[in-house]
């Protein structure tokens, strides 16, 4: 199993995955042209490796034996530079009057683009047949290895948007209350358009004045910053990396944005460079514990290593060397996971 940058010839299988994920997974829509465009953007990003402008780094997890793609994930290096980017921010404002004996704190929701220019980790999907052998961890944490290795390509902060609470129809109670009065779209359509990056309607139509949270029904207030139950494991994983909810939520489902300074992310600051040595082939573990990545950009690869690292070295088997495209003596980046 190898994680690598996506290639143009992955389009068919990416499209299969997009169909598999369904409508709820808006960043992977069943839209072949859109997916082809995303692949092209990603190829350009890996090739140019620029520290400025929008750049999408899209990765796939390849099952080399089965010649199949097992999943995908991506990093948007700087959001909001080409299409607008919006969230609500939960703020607080004191509200005091000694004469009325009043000393309260009002919570407000304000439309915000504070994340413009930040990196986003997104589009993570692992196909059901491969939900084993810690492949989810490989998919998710590989991105931190890439960012650690190519630190100059990324900004100071990174975030991830988490799916909020949805009802049994996959629709959002938050949106029904707060969104539909402003947007003449249903939840899925609004969600779909933002997935396609067509977001200027948000700045045009969503409320631009602060909204007092206490005016919302209580059940909605409770849903602010809460994740969908399916999303809890993903949230827990990101929390372990050090990403926290700092008060930003999604406009449509009130799901939390979790974020961190990139240098503080566990997967970045705990990763380190070691020298490759040749090791003997050992039995494959179901609980591998060391992620290892080659240091190239277009040639970036990540696998689970079968040996544990020593202080300054890591032994890789012949097969692993081939998978990563490295030789003994080369430098690789590892992360204990």
């Amino acid at each position, binding site marked *: 199993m190898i994680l690598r940058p996506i290639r143009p010839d992955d389009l068919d299988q990416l499209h299969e995955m997009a169909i598999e994920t369904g409508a709820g997974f808006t960043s992977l829509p069943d839209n072949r042209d859109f997916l082809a465009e995303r692949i092209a953007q990603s190829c350009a990003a890996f090739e140019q490796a620029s520290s400025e402008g929008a750049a999408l780094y899209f990765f796939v997890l390849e099952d080399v034996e089965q010649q199949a793609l097992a999943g995908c994930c991506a990093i948007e290096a700087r959001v909001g530079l080409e299409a607008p980017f919006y969230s609500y921010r939960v703020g607080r*404002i004191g*509200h*005091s*009057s000694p*004469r*009325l004996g*009043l000393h*309260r704190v*009002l919570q*407000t929701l304000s439309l915000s683009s504070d994340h413009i220019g930040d990196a986003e980790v997104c589009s993570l999907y692992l196909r059901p047949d491969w939900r084993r052998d810690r492949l989810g961890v490989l998919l998710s944490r590989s991105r931190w290895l890439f960012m650690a290795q190519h630190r100059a390509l990324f900004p100071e902060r990174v975030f991830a948007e988490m799916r909020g609470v949805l009802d049994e129809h996959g629709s959002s109670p938050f949106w029904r*209350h*707060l969104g539909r*009065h*402003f*947007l*003449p*779209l249903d939840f899925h359509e609004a969600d779909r358009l933002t997935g396609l990056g*067509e977001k*200027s*309607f948000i700045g*045009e*139509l*969503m*409320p631009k*004045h*602060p*909204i*007092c949270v*206490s*005016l*919302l029904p209580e059940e909605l207030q409770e849903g602010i910053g809460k994740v969908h139950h399916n999303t809890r494991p993903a949230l827990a994983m990101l929390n372990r990396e050090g990403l926290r909810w700092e008060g930003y939520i999604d406009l449509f489902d009130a799901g939390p944005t979790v974020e961190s300074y990139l240098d503080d992310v566990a997967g970045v600051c705990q990763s380190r460079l070691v020298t490759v040595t040749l090791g003997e082939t050992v039995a494959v573990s179901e609980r591998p514990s060391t992620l290892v990545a080659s240091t190239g950009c277009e040639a970036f690869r990540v696998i689970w290593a079968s040996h544990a690292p020593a202080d300054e070295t890591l032994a890789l088997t012949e097969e692993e060397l081939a998978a990563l495209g490295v030789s003994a003596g080369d430098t690789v980046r590892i992360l204990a996971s």
Partner: protein
Amino acid sequence: MSWVVRPAEREDVPGILALAEHASPRLTNLPPDQRRLDQRVQASRRAFDIEQGPDAQACHMLVMADAHTGTLLGTASLRVKAGEGEAYYTYRQEQLIHASHQLDVRVEVPILALTHELSSSSLLCALALSPRLDDTQRLKAQRLLRRARLMMISQWPERFADRLTMALPGVIDDAGHSPFWNSVGKHFFGRDFQDINFQAGLESKSFIAEVMPPYPLYLSLLSDAARESLAHAHRTHHKALSDWYQEGFEDSGHVDILDGGPVLSARPSAVSVIKNGTWLPVTIAHQTTPTHRLLLAGQDLARYRCSMLDVAMSPAGQVVLTPEQASLLGVTAGVAVRAVLEDGL
């Protein structure tokens, strides 16, 4: 039985207190508080006495009494400026336009915007009636108190603003809860409507408005009950609402900040009492056969008297009053009174 409307005097305070205590729903601007009412009556007395025209803080407080027994049957006030030297806050109903060229749509977003633009208008307020009046009498009393105040404006237009404002109590349920308050103010103040309404009467409503969040309120976020109650009068005031419309008032597009009740306004020139009033000289006769029902008021502001009387008209176009009627109005033969023809008789 004749009723007369006249300035409130110090000795009326106990009677006004009783009226305030019986007011339902409670009136923000007529707190049942002896000390405050005392101050108000004194200030009102000064406003009536000042010849040059009162300052902006003046509030003319009137009472309606039985002309024979002197019993207090109602009260109502007329403020020179709604803000009474402070600011008179209301929520203005507005539509924001959100237009999306991406989606090619234009959405009208209704909001309530906190504003004090009605501060400089003159305010008709604080009407309360005695519980001993029956339903027919209440309507008659409301009419007299309403028109007696408009009559004042028609006689001393220079004292008042060129916009008149009046607010009617908003919807309140039987338990005294205001759906509008529960959906808006309660979240900011954490108190019940009656508490804050009482406090607003003691302190000043402007003061309360000034600690409310200044952002526009998106109407769609209010509770259904609050939205439905918006700009609706309390059920005991539905007739009053249509009467004010008939008088020439119209919906101002504003609502009360506490209970969401309707705020009406009018230009004086559109108000029927003011448009249709005329000056008539008085003659006095002991025996008359009334032919007209007139709303009548004398020219002496400090001793303002206004009453609805059945009178005769002389061939020369004078109004023929009995000595009792003349005395009730405080007028003598030869002087002019302001008169508006009433229906009926």
